[in-house]
């Protein structure tokens, strides 16, 4: 097995076993205890935990610090990095710093637009986009060169990831864009939360046909519904989120106090269906502010205990 970074996530994926990643968002303040508490639920059920980078353009404590906290807890982080807030100087600097701290998985994103966040008055950067960030880190890792051509002394060994959203438009271009991310350096991708299973199956078919799933590991994104309200909100207000009515009807069909339980059942079924799809290499479970339910969901889906790697 040839490894680029040698992270647990990379080893599990390369061994052919289904991987599990979860997500843990840092808080809107310096409360490390709260973050540790949320992360503690994920310790034994995820191979690696994604740390979001000011997700939805809301200020939170930084991804780099949060990754370090996870490592101290014995949890392997996937550091998310968005190009919205930093130029190429800061981005490359943070990649080097992250590698120096021992972070081995990096997810390169453009990030949500700042107009959606808590500081819509902010100046955005967008010096690079996600594809260019992938290319930049890959070049630092493989060629020992920065974007400027400056030599990197001590190459950052990162297992590189990207996001894909099969539910945005134009649909037929989504696989082309994924291919572009792979060309730029993506070794794994994590998808946007999947609800429209049919469309996702079509997307995977196209990705398989193009040979993309042989070049890159696809971790299918799952977010359990806590309530029918959440499902409706996602359907109506989250751009590019396709929530079929069948799920909404199903949640409506049970008493309010049972909706969360039903949401979990749906998530478990989804995970099982996704793992059956050709080319799906694992699950990316985003139980947003519901981390404590991750073990239950993953256990019911037959994904626990997690494999041990050296």
């Amino acid at each position: 097995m040839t490894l680029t970074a040698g992270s647990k996530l990379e080893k599990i994926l390369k061994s052919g076993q289904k991987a599990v990643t979860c997500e843990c968002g840092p808080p809107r303040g310096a409360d490390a205890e709260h973050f540790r508490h949320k992360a503690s639920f994920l310790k034994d059920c995820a191979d690696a935990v994604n740390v979001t980078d000011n997700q939805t353009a809301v200020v939170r404590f930084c991804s780099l610090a949060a990754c370090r906290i996870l490592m101290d807890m014995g949890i392997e982080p996937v550091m998310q990095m968005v190009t919205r807030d930093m130029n190429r100087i800061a981005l490359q600097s943070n990649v080097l710093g992250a590698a120096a701290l021992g972070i081995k998985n990096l997810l390169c994103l453009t990030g949500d637009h700042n107009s959606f966040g808590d500081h819509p008055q902010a100046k955005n950067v967008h010096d690079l986009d996600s594809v260019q960030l992938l290319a930049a880190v890959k070049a630092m890792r493989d060629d020992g060169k920065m974007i400027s051509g400056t030599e990197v002394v001590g190459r950052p060994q990162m297992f590189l990831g990207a996001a894909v959203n099969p539910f945005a438009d134009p649909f037929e271009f989504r696989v082309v864009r994924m291919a572009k991310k792979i060309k730029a350096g993506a070794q794994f991708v994590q998808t946007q939360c999947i609800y429209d299973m049919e469309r996702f199956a079509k997307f995977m078919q196209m990705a398989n046909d193009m040979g993309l799933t042989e070049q890159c590991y696809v971790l299918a994104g799952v977010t359990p519904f806590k309530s029918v309200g959440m499902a409706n909100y996602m359907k109506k207000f989250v751009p590019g989120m396709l929530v079929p009515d069948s799920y909404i009807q199903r949640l409506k069909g049970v008493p309010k106090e049972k909706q969360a339980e039903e949401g979990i059942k749906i998530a478990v079924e989804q995970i099982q269906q996704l793992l059956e799809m050709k080319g799906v290499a694992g699950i990316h479970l985003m139980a947003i502010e519901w981390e404590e339910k991750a073990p239950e969901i993953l256990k019911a889906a037959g994904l626990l205990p997690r494999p041990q790697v050296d």
Partner: protein
Amino acid sequence: MVVAESKPVTEILDMIKECKKVVVAGCKGCVTVCNSGGEKEVGILASELRLARKVAGDDLEVLEYTCERQCDPEYIEPLDDLVKDVDAVVSIACSVGPQYIAARYPFLPVFPGLNTVFIGGAAEHGVWKEYCQACGHCIIGDFGGLCPVTRCAKSLMNGPCGGSSGGKCEVGKGTIDCIWHLIYERLKNLGQLSRLENPWGFKNWSTSRDGGPRTMIREELRK
């Protein structure tokens, strides 16, 4: 053209509250075309200022003049006589105008009567849209002649992002076209989709304002 919009009159009144006599200076260039700073708008703004101050019991004398252009020193010169005994100039050119006026009259206050909003054009009567950010190195040839630097909310060179839905950008609640959707459709029509298959490299922003304020020199035109 440079597209600009009028500042609220209350904001202008506040800027000139200490003044007894001002010149409102318009421009016959871009701002005349986009109906914000031409001769007609000079007249309207001058009347509004006079009236507001009259109502407040603090009369304001307002002179009116519309320059051929305010982005050429020679066309600022005709203001010389008018500004002799005024307290300030309110320029309703794009923001180049007030800065030229400031440069010509070191001891005279100048205030902007417009907000300069973008380089763009008319989409329909009364609607203007942004098309260019003056990045200093045009790359639209790679994108079907459409500009992702300006017209993509995230300036993506490798779009469209996950926020593109039904041809619209997630920013602007459905009012902004996803330029990457348009780039895709256009290249598809041109039979050039293969242009989008490879990652577009790193843009050199040093030709943009990021490289510092810019000067363009054409030696063959210098006297």
